[in-house]
């Protein structure tokens, strides 16, 4: 049987499919369930310094090619997060996503995450619908560089930078974040939706993020561009519903992938469906391990 395990720097996963940040990862019970149902690792919902309720409903809207969402970075804040996750027993399989408005906030949160015993942070430099955080700072190369370098200097965490596709050239941001251990590509596309019978916006915040099958080619282009430009470890995310989608990301340079909106389409079964699909594909195509196909179409 081919080996489908993968490694992002020294972070090992038995399977290359992770739960993406923002989906079913607010509660420790749900994170455990993803890990139990075949995810190699799971990323938490983005945690900030203060508790945030997020936006009023509707926060999600279903469109023909995916989902629109503007949840609004709802999160319990780092204190309550610590309270709930301190006793969590599988910290080595969980990546904590954090967001902040400046380098000090990112550093503060990182130190807290590190002191709890986690090994990896994913920097949310890409949420497209909250003012002053996420993509608003993730679109500025200088701020991104400052945050990544400061965390690199002052923590021993592995740093993953989740970048926004809502920029002219994502490789510029990636280069600014080159001291990160890996890139997570991509977050949602900034988007809007309207209903023609009520003539009102579909989301209470009007503007939200677009995810799902429709954004897969955009995510794949970002993976391709950043892989060819930097050669660094990449975790691909965006529109992955099937093992075929996952294999495409590997061929373009991703070493692991994340699924989020895919859980809406395939539910928790998505993890093992993709795992067994990749396994069968490698076997049929005479590869002995996943690493052999990473970047194969690009090299």
């Amino acid at each position, binding site marked *: 049987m081919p080996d489908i395990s993968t490694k992002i720097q020294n972070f090992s996963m038995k399977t290359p499919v992770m739960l993406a940040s923002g989906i079913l990862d607010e509660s420790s019970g749900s994170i455990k369930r993803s890990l139990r149902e075949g995810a190699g690792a799971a990323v938490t919902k983005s945690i900030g310094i203060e*508790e945030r309720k997020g936006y009023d409903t509707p926060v999600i809207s279903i469109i023909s090619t995916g989902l629109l969402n503007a949840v609004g970075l709802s999160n319990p804040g780092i204190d309550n997060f610590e309270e709930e996750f301190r006793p969590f027993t599988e910290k080595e399989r969980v990546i904590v996503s954090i967001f902040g408005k400046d380098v000090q906030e990112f550093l503060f949160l990182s130190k807290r995450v590190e002191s709890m015993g986690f090994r990896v942070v994913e920097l949310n430099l890409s949420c497209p619908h909250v003012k002053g955080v996420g993509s608003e700072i993730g679109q500025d190369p200088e701020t991104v560089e400052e945050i990544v370098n400061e965390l690199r200097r002052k923590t021993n965490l592995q740093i993953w930078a989740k970048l926004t596709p809502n920029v002219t050239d994502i490789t510029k941001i990636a280069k600014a974040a080159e001291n990160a251990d890996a890139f997570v590509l991509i977050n949602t596309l900034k988007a809007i939706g309207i209903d023609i019978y009520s003539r*009102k916006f579909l989301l209470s915040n009007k503007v939200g993020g677009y995810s799902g099958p429709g954004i897969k080619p955009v995510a794949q282009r970002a993976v391709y561009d950043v892989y060819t430009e930097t050669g660094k470890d990449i975790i691909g995310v965006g529109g992955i519903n099937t093992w075929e989608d996952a294999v495409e990301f590997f061929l373009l340079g991703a070493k692991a992938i994340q699924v989020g909106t895919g859980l809406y389409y395939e539910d928790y079964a998505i993890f093992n469906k993709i795992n067994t699909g990749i396994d069968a594909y490698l076997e049929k195509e005479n590869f002995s391990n996943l690493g052999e196909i990473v970047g194969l179409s690009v090299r």
Partner: protein
Amino acid sequence: MIHSAVKEIRKEKGGIFTIEFDADMKASPGQFLMIWVPGLREIPMSLSRTEKPFSITFRVFGDSTRALSELRRGDYLFFRGPYGNSYPVPSGRIAYVAGGTGMASLKSMIDRYPGDVYVGAKNRDELFFVESGYYIATDDGSSGYRGTVVDLFFSEGKEYDYIFVCGPEQMMKSLYDRLPKNTSAKVFMSLERLMKCGIGICDSCSINGFRVCKDGTVFDLGQISTMTEFGISRRGASGKLEFLTNPKR
């Protein structure tokens, strides 16, 4: 987003309204819709009738439900769904235990599979869908038994093969706690939590890894017995775990 013309809207009691509408969909008792009030909120609501004409029944508790209560025949009702699982088909002796607006969720079951119906409310003005022969409990004694519907249910001491329960979580917890451990009855409870997405992805309504909107809303005793958060804590809008303090009914 589905839109459908309101066929009829009627006031059941005080602040409780039923809206009837037609739609090309299949629904089963226990399922819910995400009702959208354009420009205002989106709210999960049980279907009180799961075949044409479909209906929702709700209590006015804020701007969005007030706007819904002011819809007129022919106005559009906006929604997505139906979502969630449904109550199983019962046989033998059947009981329904409803607290507050939990009656809306059980109504389509009661219509299909008649049984003993126990209804609890704060007072007589909040009782709705009540028919003769129902067992009634009110907190203030203004109608029927004075006390909780759970007290009434156990004081009657009748045995059932199927028991369906929907109401405030503390009421359901109280019923759960008082059921004999070796009960032979098949018991199903429809749970309610803060729901944002309705489609099983946002984690707001999760209880110990069970999603109320997707794995439920109907759970059996075996599942409920593994929920350490049931009747104890729930997630607030931020995702923070909060402890329940609601009074029992």
